[in-house]
């Protein structure tokens, strides 16, 4: 269960309002894409969801509970870069999630628990298609493989909510398609809600069940500091898809030559 409710959230810095009047509810097992022009506050919004920063006004809850003041394992995250640890091999990068969550003061597990964790990490690595790369360091992996690894690492602790900040922005189109399929599979297999920031509209519309756009409504230079971005556009693709299946239409796919 993982319903994220954002209620009238504002984010202001000393000199600037970045976000204002952000309200929405994801519902359970949602896949929400957040789009918008560069600099409109998408990453800032994910930082709020991650408890890396606090909203100036408004509240965010997950399953009715207010966000804790610090990052916690119920929220996983994948960034565009620096998501994985350069000093750990692929397997260690996944294993470290379990070691940090369940391990001792030094972040280590021993004996049977370590063997179980290792097996779970190896299975997860296999699941994202990185079995053969398990003893490689991130610097030895391609960009796509690194992001697969980042997904495996974020999901090993089974977060309720997965946050993605332009995770595939640096990948070439072919690699991107493969990893899209992987992400959808991982999302369907779990109950987690995904919030993904992207600047790629086709990506948003193919993956998500809902697309939310942030933008500034007032963009005159003298207004820029005093007004932030807000939700300008909110499409429920699930509803659209349901609607399309209900209303008989000319079968588009078959009509194509």
């Amino acid at each position, binding site marked *: 269960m993982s319903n994220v409710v954002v209620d009238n959230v504002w984010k202001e810095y000393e000199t600037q309002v970045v976000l204002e009047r952000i309200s929405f509810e994801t519902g359970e097992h949602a896949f929400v894409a957040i789009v918008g022009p560069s600099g409109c506050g998408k990453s800032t919004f994910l930082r709020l969801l991650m408890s890396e920063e606090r909203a100036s006004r408004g509240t965010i809850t997950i399953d009715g509970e207010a966000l804790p003041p610090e*990052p916690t394992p119920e929220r996983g*995250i994948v*960034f565009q870069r620096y998501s994985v*640890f350069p000093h750990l091999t692929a397997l260690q990068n996944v294993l470290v999630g379990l070691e*940090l969550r369940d391990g001792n*003061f*030094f*972040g280590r597990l021993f004996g049977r628990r370590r063997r179980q964790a290792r097996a779970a990490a190896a299975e997860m690595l296999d699941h994202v298609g990185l079995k053969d790369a398990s003893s490689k360091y991130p610097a030895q992996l391609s960009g796509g493989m690194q992001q697969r690894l980042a997904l495996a690492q974020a999901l090993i*602790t089974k977060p309720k909510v997965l946050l993605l900040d332009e995770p595939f922005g640096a990948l070439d189109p072919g690699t991107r398609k493969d990893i899209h399929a992987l992400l959808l599979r991982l999302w369907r297999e779990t109950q987690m809600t995904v919030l993904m920031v992207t600047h790629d509209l086709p990506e948003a519309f193919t993956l998500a069940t809902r697309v939310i756009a942030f933008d500034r409504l007032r963009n005159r230079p003298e207004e820029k500091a005093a007004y932030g971005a807000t939700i300008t556009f909110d499409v429920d693709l699930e509803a659209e898809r349901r609607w399309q299946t209900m209303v008989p239409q000319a079968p588009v796919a078959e009509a194509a030559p």
Partner: protein
Amino acid sequence: MASRLINLRPNRRVAIALATLPFILSILIYLVFSAARLAENPNDKVLPAPSSFVETFERYVLEPDVRTGDYLLWSDTLASLYRLGSGVAIATLVALVFGIGLGLVPVVGSVFSAFVTAVAMVPPLAVLPILFIALGLGETAKIALIAIGIGPVIMRDLALRVAEIPREQLIKAQSLGASTWQIVWRIVLPQVLPRLIDSVRLVMGQAWLFLIAAEAIAAQSGLGYRIFLMRRYLSMDVILPYVFWITLLAVASDLLLRLLRTWAFPWARGETKAP
């Protein structure tokens, strides 16, 4: 054949030959000038003949000293390396603890950052008299000079390295449930250790400087002590081999640190900055 000088690259054998050239050349120049001076005045002490180095070698390496019964080069080397090693080890350990604290924990940074910056500005040699007065003329003062001389430099470098760790990694670790201590042990420490080695390599030259300065002023043994003792007798036949030996030790320690880095931190290969 490339027409531009910047595109002209010697092959491996030529490169090695070229690299040894300056060494051979300087030895030749020494021999020529030494021979010329000795021809003019056979008692000249400034540029002793190669044969006198052999005598020195016998006296300092192969035969015990008549007064102390020590093999002088070895006892001097051991005394110096003990001081150098202790000083560098203490500086490294303290710098590691405080560097990580300063770079990672904002509260520690607020308390100590300005203080460390100020302390790093104190010229260590100016502190030497204080150390001799406070700690006596024994080993402690010399070790303390080395530690005080290089500690703050390593510390500040490490704090910067820790602060350079991408914010994403720290958030990531927290999102995996890591405590501050677990972040230190699993994320920060392993990533700054190779940088610590780079740092130590860079300050080793200074460490030698402080060691020799301290030994020159008050010691009964040590490489620096011997050099400054022999200066009184203008014994270039001892001073030059000692300088050569110190250089060799410095080169060897640098090489060892470099090997340690590549061997212990395979993931960090290729990001070494110092050659």
